[in-house]
């Protein structure tokens, strides 16, 4: 999956691959409920800045998750006294994440096998 490692350019502002951004959002929210800005920061830091997610592209993904009730949102005030909208993963979101991660891992394993036929690596 070479595109994953490539910094996003302006012309290629779509999701990494369908569902990848959602998966990362859900995973972040599983660890800790947070608002949009914090989510972007979190994803970029965790990926060692390898994934330069265009900040705005987060919001359509969040709306999709909201719509399918995988997350819920609430207006509140942050520790730094900012008005923020905090997202929280739901039970359905947890189940969905689990499924997605396992299917992603299988896919990744398959791709790795094809790309490196000698080594049977798993992580």
């Amino acid at each position, binding site marked *: 999956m070479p595109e994953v490692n490539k910094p996003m350019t*302006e012309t290629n*502002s779509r999701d990494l691959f369908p569902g990848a951004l959602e998966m990362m959002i859900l995973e972040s929210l599983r660890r800790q409920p947070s*608002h*949009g*800005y914090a989510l*972007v920061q979190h994803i970029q830091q965790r990926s060692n800045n390898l994934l330069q997610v*265009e*900040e*705005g*592209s987060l*919001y*359509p993904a*969040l*709306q*999709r998750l*909201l*719509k399918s009730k995988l997350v819920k*949102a609430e*207006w509140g005030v942050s520790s730094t006294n*900012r*008005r*923020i*909208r905090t997202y929280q993963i739901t039970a359905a979101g947890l189940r969905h994440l689990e499924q997605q991660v396992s299917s992603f891992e299988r896919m990744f394993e398959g791709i790795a096998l094809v790309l490196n036929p000698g080594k049977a690596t798993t992580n």
Partner: protein
Amino acid sequence: MNWIANIFRRGKLYNDLSEEIRLHIDERAEQLMGEGMSPAEAQRTARMAFGNRAVQEERSREVWQWPTLESIVADVRLALRQLRRSPGFTMAAIGTLALAIGANAVVFSVLNAFLLRPLKVPHPDSLYALHHGYDLTANQSYPSYVDLRDRNRSFDGLVAYDVSAAVLDTGNNPSSVWTEDVSGNYFDALGLQPYLGRFFHAGDEHGPNSAPYIVLTYDYWHTHFQDDRGVVGRVVQVNKHPFTILGVAPAEFNGTLLFFNPECFVPLVEDPFLGGGDLNARGNDFIFETLGHLKPGVTPAQAEAELNSIGASIQKTYPKDVGKMTFALKRPNLYGDFLGRPVRAFIAGLMLLTGLILLAACANLGSLFAARAADRSREVALRLALGSSRKRILRGLFTEAIMISLAGGGIGLLGSVVLLRALSAWQPLPGFPIHLAVNPDAKVYVVAVLLALASGLLFGAVPVRQVLRTNPYEVVKAGTGSAAGKRMNARDVLLVVQIAICAVLVTSSLVAVRGLVRSLHAHFGFDVAHIMLAETDLGMAGYSGDRAQLMQKQMVEAVRALPGVESVGLADSLPLAVNGGSSSQIFTDATTDLRPSNAMANAIAYDISPEYFHAAGTTLLSGRNFTEHDDKNSPRVAVVNLEFARKIFGSPASALGGYFKMKNGTRIQVVGIAENGKYASLTEDPQPATFFPILQAPNTSTILVVRERPGLDTEAFQIGATIRNALHRVDSGLQVTVETRDKPMESTLFGPRIATIALGVLGVMGAMLSITGIFGMAANSVSKRLKELGIRVALGAQRKEVLQAALGRAFKLLAIGSGVGLVLGLLATKVLAFIVYQATPRDPLVLAGVVLAMAALGLLATWIPAQRALSVNPLALLREE
């Protein structure tokens, strides 16, 4: 459903989203400022990091939308906004399309009513009429009909009908009605049920005048009996004989002929009372048409084969009376091919032409849209640069096109419905129950909407390539001035196509109009101007035999005595009138076996008085006129026309004094030769015709041909009323129709007139379309090249050269298009010749007319752009840039 709830919650969702994004950017900016950036720099960087906010917001919103419908609504809103910004363009486009779709809806509705809609009888698919295998008619004698009905095994009952005019009197209000005289099994075999009362049946007939019953059509019952359910069982007088009203036919049933709506039905066996044919005469082919439902599983070909063998045996049994007897099964709606062929040809031609109009309109709108897209290329480029996808922009353009096409289609359809309603209510021939029931139905609406959508897609597609090729950076940098290619581009081709189509329309309408004008001024073998007709049937008024003849004499004398009348002729029927003369078989004198197959010709025969030729204006070429002495006691004589003389005798010289024989063996001597004329239709070839002295061939049908004195002041004299009064003084009970000579010809001119009107309307529409098309193109080319023209003027170009530069291309395209259209139009007029008399394209006037018309259209359309090109002020233009 979830999405319904979403629609109501949406306002809050969207506000939350915008707020959230704003806060996001703020937070980022604040953080950047914390890292030491200036506020402005921080805002900029924060926005860049966020990406295209509008696009992200729209994508986020889309998540909540009911995908297709709502984005369509959004597109429609945008399109409406865009269209409202250019009302001129919008109105022109909608108007153009409304005309084109309206024309198509009208013609399709006519096609639908005449050719597609089946008759209102059960199982119309299996209903066939027995037409002659050798000509376009279907006449039979009553005995032959009975033989065919009883001996065939292909039909579920064979019915026969004849059409006649009668006087119906419900008390003391005699009024003339058109009846269909039908066989007893008529309603049962067609499968009809009465609306009220009962029908008559085959079992009610027991020979001539055994079934004095009458069935009213729904319309006649509705208009003349005010829906009175008590009419059943009432006795009325038909031609002064008592008939009982049995019932009322179903509302939608008006006989089996599409145009001709009779007012009532009476049994065919009553024909002797109705002035119809003799039921027992094998040779008297008075039955208009026979028809029936084919039995299940029988093909028309099988039925024809069976009928032909029955016909052959009838012919063998009655060789003296029956000629060729072969059959072709046809649809009864338009009387087989007799009306069917010209009607089909004409409607197909019209459909083709209106299709072309629509195509021309699409070409027109296509180039309008292309010009609009070119004008908007900056806007398109800007939108592309701001992140809009090309698909989205194209969708917007198509939405505009579809909106315009639907609006135009709707308005066009509305207009056509109004027109069609009027057409359906119209009675084109006064005194005849002719109706054109062309009311639109669901099929018409569907076709109109589909046509509108299709044309919207068609002209909406014209600017697609343009948009796809748009390079936002280039356009924004360089402005709109694109290089004008020397080659013909798509828009030029569209314009040529459009002009060619319009030239076809202009050509055919000119040919038709010219043909009609010529046919109105041609000589028909009789005069039209200064002739009045007074028509009555003495049989209906109760006269017969010698009394009728005496009455005719009194009538002629009464009118002849009037001041202002030069001469009065008497005839039983007239050329080019609806019942224009009966056809008789003519044999040479040497023929002894007078079987129909030995006849030399069929001649139209008129019974006339000696004064007729002078009164009617028919020239006697040689020989003598009839006299008062050519009566029952003297040998039979005739005046024949030139064609008769040529056909039977070879030449006029040998005809004069020669003899010919009628079917019953009567020898008749030719005493005079008259000029040829038109007898049944304007488009016919010369037909043989013969005139008999009315004293030798008495007839109750009475037409006075009244020639006015030359120089008569008709306004002051009121000759019509005077004639009517004079005749009423002879018998106050006479039903007399007084009219000018051209009135009864209206029916023969009806077809050509309709054709000419239709083509004229299409021609005008075509002309309008070509004006707007050329105007659009010329205006566009002038405004694009205004700078170039300014430079030319600055360098000393003459007016002529400026015009050539500005409009040369438009005129070149006009010339090419007109040339192509003219040639195609001339080819198309071959079809026209079927309907319009003397519709010949080889007419210098027509050719000159088309060229002049197209040139005039070109001048008209380029006038404003030319003025603009000529008024170019080079200084002002050059200063602008």
